[in-house]
C-alpha cells in the first residue's frame, strides 16, 4: 500500500514538472513578467501539487481501496472487484441512510431558500434603518461551528427539559420525542441546517438583488404591479443565477451532512444515527464503517464513491432544471417579441 501511494504521489509531481518545461520555451508574451516566464507556473504550482496529492490521488485511491476487502487492522486483503458495491446496493442500512440524507436535504434546502429570498427582498431597501445590524445578525449563525450548533439544538429538542417540548406542553399538547420519530428527527436536524445557512443565503441573494437596476421596479410599479408581483416577476427570475449557485452549494453540502446527526444522538460514539438508524446519514454511515469497529475501509470507500456519484447526479439535476427553465424563458421571450412586432405592424 505504501509503495502505491509513493509512486502515485511521485508521478503527480513529475507530471507537474514535465508540463512546465515545454511551455517555458514557447512562452513569449508581453505581460509584465516576460523575462521570468517560469514565474507564473511557480506561483500557481502549490495549488496544483496539493490538489494532485490530496484531491486527485485520494479520489482515485478511494476507488482502488473500494475494490478490495480492506480493513484498518488487517490491511489490504483480497481484490474483490465490485463486490463492495453490489453488497452496498443490498444493504438496507445504506438504503435507509440515503433516504434519510435526501429527506433532510429537502427539509433544509427548500425552506431555507424561500426564507432567504423573502428576507433578502425585505433587506433590499436603501431606506431601511439598522440594515447593518440585521445583516450581521443574520450572518452570526453561519460563523458558528456545527458542533456548537448541534449541542445547543440537541438540548432545545431534548425530550425532557427541552425548551421546545416545554413550550409544546405549556400550549397544552403532548411533548414530542423528537429523537425517536423519523420525520421529527429529520425536522430537528434540518432546523439546525436552516438556522445556520439562511442568513448566509440571504446575503447572497441580497447582493444579487442590489445588482438589479431600480428602473425595472419603477417601471413595473408604474404599470401597476403589486409588491408581490414585483418580487415574483422581477426579483426571482433575475435572481436565478444566484439561486442556482446557492442551491448547488447547499445540495453538495447537505449530502455530506455529518456533525449534526452525529451529535444529535447523545452518548459516546453514536454513529448509528438513532436506535433504528432513523437519522443515519450517508457520511455518518461511512465514518462508522471506516473508523469504528469493524474498520471496513474497502466497504466505506465504496460508500464514498457512491456519494461522489450522487453529488454529481444531484448537481446535474439542478443544472438540468435550470437549463429547462432557461429554455422556457427564451421561448416566452421569443413569443413576446414576435407579438410585439406584430402589434407594431398592426399599429402602423
Amino acid at each position: 500500500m505504501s509503495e502505491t501511494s509513493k509512486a502515485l504521489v511521485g508521478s503527480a509531481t513529475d507530471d507537474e514538472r514535465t508540463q512546465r518545461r515545454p511551455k517555458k520555451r514557447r512562452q513569449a508574451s508581453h505581460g509584465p513578467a516576460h523575462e521570468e516566464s517560469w514565474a507564473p507556473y511557480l506561483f500557481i504550482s502549490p495549488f496544483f501539487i496539493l490538489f494532485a496529492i490530496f484531491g486527485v490521488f485520494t479520489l482515485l485511491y478511494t476507488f482502488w481501496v473500494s475494490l478490495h476487502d480492506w480493513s484498518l487492522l488487517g490491511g489490504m486483503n483480497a481484490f474483490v472487484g465490485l463486490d463492495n458495491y453490489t453488497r452496498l446496493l443490498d444493504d438496507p442500512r445504506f438504503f435507509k441512510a440515503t433516504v434519510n440524507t435526501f429527506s433532510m436535504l429537502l427539509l433544509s434546502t427548500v425552506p431555507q431558500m424561500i426564507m432567504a429570498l423573502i428576507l433578502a427582498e425585505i433587506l433590499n431597501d436603501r431606506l431601511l434603518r439598522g440594515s447593518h445590524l440585521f445583516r450581521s445578525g443574520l450572518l452570526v449563525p453561519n460563523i458558528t461551528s456545527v458542533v456548537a450548533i448541534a449541542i445547543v439544538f440537541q438540548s432545545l429538542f431534548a425530550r425532557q427539559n427541552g425548551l421546545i417540548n416545554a413550550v409544546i406542553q405549556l400550549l397544552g399538547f403532548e411533548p414530542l420525542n423528537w429523537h425517536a420519530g423519523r420525520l421529527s428527527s429529520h425536522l430537528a436536524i434540518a432546523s439546525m441546517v436552516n438556522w445556520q445557512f439562511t442568513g448566509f443565503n440571504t446575503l447572497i441573494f441580497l447582493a444579487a438583488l442590489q445588482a438589479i437596476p431600480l428602473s425595472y421596479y419603477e417601471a413595473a410599479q408604474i404599470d401597476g404591479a403589486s409588491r408581490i408581483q414585483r418580487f415574483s416577476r422581477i426579483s426571482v427570475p433575475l435572481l436565478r443565477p444566484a439561486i442556482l449557485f446557492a442551491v448547488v452549494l447547499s445540495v453538495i453540502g447537505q449530502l455530506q451532512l455529518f456533525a449534526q446527526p452525529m451529535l444529535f444522538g447523545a452518548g459516546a460514539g453514536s454513529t448509528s444515527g438513532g436506535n433504528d438508524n432513523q437519522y443515519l446519514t450517508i457520511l455518518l454511515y461511512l465514518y462508522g464503517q471506516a473508523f469504528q469497529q469493524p474498520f471496513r475501509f474497502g466497504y466505506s470507500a465504496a460508500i464514498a464513491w457512491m456519494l461522489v456519484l450522487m453529488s454529481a447526479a444531484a448537481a446535474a439535476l439542478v443544472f438540468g432544471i435550470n437549463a429547462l427553465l432557461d429554455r422556457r424563458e427564451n421561448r416566452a421571450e421569443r413569443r413576446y417579441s414576435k407579438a410585439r412586432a406584430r402589434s407594431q405592424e398592426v399599429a402602423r
Partner: protein
Amino acid sequence: MTTLEKVSTRGDGSTGRSELILRDRPPLARAVHATRRSGLKYTILVLALAVSVFPFYWMYVVASNSNAVMSQFPPRVVPGPNFLTNARLAVEGVPFGTALLNSFVVASAITVSVLFFSTMAGFAFAKMRFRGRGGLFTFVLGTMLVPQQLGLIPLFILMGYFGWVGDLRAVIVPSLVTAFGVFWMRQVVAGSVPDELLEAARMDGCSIFGIVRHVVWPSVAPGAAVLGLYTFLFAWNDFLWPLVVLGNEPSSHTIQIALRTLSDTYYVNYSMVMAGTLLSVVPLMIVFVLFSRQMVAGAMDGALKG
C-alpha cells in the same frame, strides 16, 4: 393571441391601479399606508434576528443555571449565577486550554499559508500571461465542486504513511492552499492592482518577487483580510477530518473535538456542556464583532464574484 392583447394594453402606457391610488390619496393616508407596510417589514426582520441570536442567549441561560434548575418545569428562561462554576467544570472535564491552543495553531498556520500561496497564484492568474492560463483557472474553479470529505480514507492511509496520524500537521498540510482562496485572490488582484503600477515597477528594474512584495501585497491587503477571516473561521470550525485523524490523540485535539468529547462524556450535565460550548464560541464572537462589516461585505462580494 392572448399575449398580444396583454402586451398591447400594457404597452400603451395605461396606468395601473396603484399609481392612481398613490396620486389620489391625501399625504397622511399615504404615510400611514407606508408605515404599516414597513412595520410588517421590521417585524419580520426583528423576528429573524431574534431567531438568529436566541440560541446564544439560550446557551448562556443553560450554562449559567445549575442542572437541577434546568430540569424543573417550566424551565428557567433567564440567566442564573452559576456560569463560572459550570465553566470551571467544563475546562477541567476536558483538556480545554490545550484544545484552544491547538485550534489556534492550526487555524493560524492555515490562514497564513492560504493567504501567501493564494495571493501568488491569484496574481499569476490575474496579471501574468502564460500558456494555459484560462484552462488552468477553469480547472481550479472545477475542483471546488469536488467534495473534499470523500478522500477521507486514503487521506487517513496517507497520513499513516507519513506518520502524521494524531499530529496537527495532518490537519494543516492538506489545507495549505485552497481553490477558493486562489479564486478569491485572483478577483482581488484583478480589481485592486493597477497595471500601470506593475509596469512602472517593471521599468524601475524590480524583480518579479520585488513586485509581489512592494506592489501586490500592499494593494490587496483589504481583500486578503476578508479571505483570511473566513479561512481562519473555517479552519477553527472544521470537524470531520480533525476528528478522524486526531481523534485518538487527546493532546492534539482541536476545540471542536474537545467539545464533542465533552458532550459525549457529560451529556447528562447540560449546564456544564453548555458552558464549554459557550467558551468555544466566544473567540469567534470577538472576531465577528470586530470585523462584522468586512465579513458581511465579504459574504456579499463572494456571491457576486461567484
